[in-house]
């Protein structure tokens, strides 16, 4: 089951944003090589296995570019 869903067209890029990478406790995000339609480099989907579904990437992504399913989105306080 896929836990983290990316919407790369919504992303504004790992270069200027990169918040997902910063807030992921497992550091699962790296930039893709391919620009999206707006010219930004979105992250690659994280390695599902390592993901804890903590929800950080979703909650912090300012551009609604990530959804996390089935995790304790509300649970873990920083």
């Amino acid at each position, binding site marked *: 089951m896929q836990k983290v869903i990316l919407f790369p067209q919504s992303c504004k890029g790992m270069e200027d*944003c990169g918040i997902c990478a910063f807030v992921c406790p497992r550091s699962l995000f790296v930039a893709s090589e391919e620009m999206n339609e707006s010219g930004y480099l979105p992250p690659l989907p994280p390695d599902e296995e390592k993901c804890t579904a903590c929800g950080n990437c979703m909650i912090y992504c300012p551009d609604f570019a990530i959804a996390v399913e089935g995790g304790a989105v509300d649970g873990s306080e920083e």
Partner: protein
Amino acid sequence: MSEKTHPLRKYMRPQVKKTTFCPGCGAGIITQALLRAIDELGLTMDDFVFVSGIGCSAWIPSPLLNADTLHTTHGRPIAYASGVKMGLPDKHVVVVSGDGDLSAIGGNHLIHAARRNIDMTVILVNNGIYGMTGGQTAPTTPYGLTTITSPYGNAEQEFDISALVVAAGGSYVARWTTYHPRQMTKSIKKAIQKKGFAMIEAITQCPMQFGRVSKQGSAVNMLKNYKQNGIRIEKAAKMDPSELQGKIVEGVFVDCDKPELISSVAALQRRTGGKE
């Protein structure tokens, strides 16, 4: 991979494809915090009217949110929102706007709405700068900081907006940085449910303007700063003011109940025979 949509997408106008914010701008985090609050409260967009002023932050509801939305002039959203609330007392009226909008040009409406204790939720997006106009000093810009209009350093003291609104009479006042989006959501929920004037001061990164002028740089750097320097009110209360230099005090500053404007009008009229 993405036939699915983002779970909060349903609260956005279908015509709007993406946010208007710069990469890494905290406005989007606050938008999520707000929508998640609505989601968790089980309310629908038809329960709300959103009002905003002018500025980057004012574009959070306009046109993004799929609800009745009034995008007004610079500084005036709380005044407009007061009229909306007088006309639609059963709706949740939520103002989302910037620190410049609400505390510089609009400061008077902010304190008077708080004083009146009119039932309303204000999300004050505090990025410490005028974002949209290009990085000028705001009333929230720290003393000494170099900006476009204070090239030799800001000679003015900054507002503690939450303290100001507490003093003005707000019923619920909380401050959170974008590094604490979950707490922010929780506070927004409380604010929406509060019968009275409620404000969330959302401290947020503006990498494009504040980041540039302050030389704090990227969104991630600014979030790091929030992480390092954010401190809870409960803890701060026990500290010496000098220790709080450079810290960002977060938490709930007031949560009380007192007569709300619109219900007071009704109550007084009943009492003095103004209403049949």
